[in-house]
């Protein structure tokens, strides 16, 4: 019989496991825009983990900062510098 605390821990484990391939794809991807999108996906998984760990104030800051604002700034600098990594 699954209790509610078990369900919370299972959701924590699933979101932590889904953040690992997002991190791997963000590091090994040659296209910098794809790397940024995978980084935002990993940030989304971390946001779900923050919410499940009973820290809703950090969720409110972290969504705006790490998914919105950093993605905007890195898109701007990718537009200036060039999209593709050389090797």
């Amino acid at each position, binding site marked *: 019989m699954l209790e509610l605390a078990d369900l919370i821990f299972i959701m924590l484990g699933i979101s932590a*496991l889904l953040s690992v391939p997002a991190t791997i794809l963000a590091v090994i991807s040659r296209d910098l825009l794809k790397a940024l999108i995978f980084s935002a996906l990993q940030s989304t998984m971390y946001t779900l983990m923050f919410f499940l760990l009973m820290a809703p104030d950090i969720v409110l800051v*972290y969504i705006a*900062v790490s998914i919105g604002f*950093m993605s905007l700034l*890195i898109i701007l600098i990718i537009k200036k510098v060039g999209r593709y990594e050389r090797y």
Partner: protein
Amino acid sequence: MGSEIQIAMYMTVILSLYINISICMYGVISKPNLIKKLISLTILQDSINMFLILIGYRLWRPGIVLQPPVLLDWSPTSEVLKQFLERAVDPLPQALVLTAIVIGLAVNIFLITVILHTYRHFGTVDMDEIGRLKRVVIVEETA
């Protein structure tokens, strides 16, 4: 049965965070592109913050119903306060992480500015190219 699932999932979370930290350290050290280094560094910061939040988490005791960690009445008795302290999480790591996220935002904006000026000076953001160009400049100045 329930506690075994909880312990297994907790160890899964800690192992995933360690794997994330190791992958991001590989990305910071081994990738020559400066923007890729910056993206890896932001993921590294978030993983460390997640460890800090995970320290302050407190599991509910069995028998306590799931409620938000706030006080629901204006004049709480000592019994209500005792139950509240038993089910509330630790707020100190959350305050630390909230400060660390904002400081990390400022540091990341500074790093983006440094990368932009490096690109305007050298014409590239590849670390190997920058090292070669700096060597050429030094040879030209000394000759």
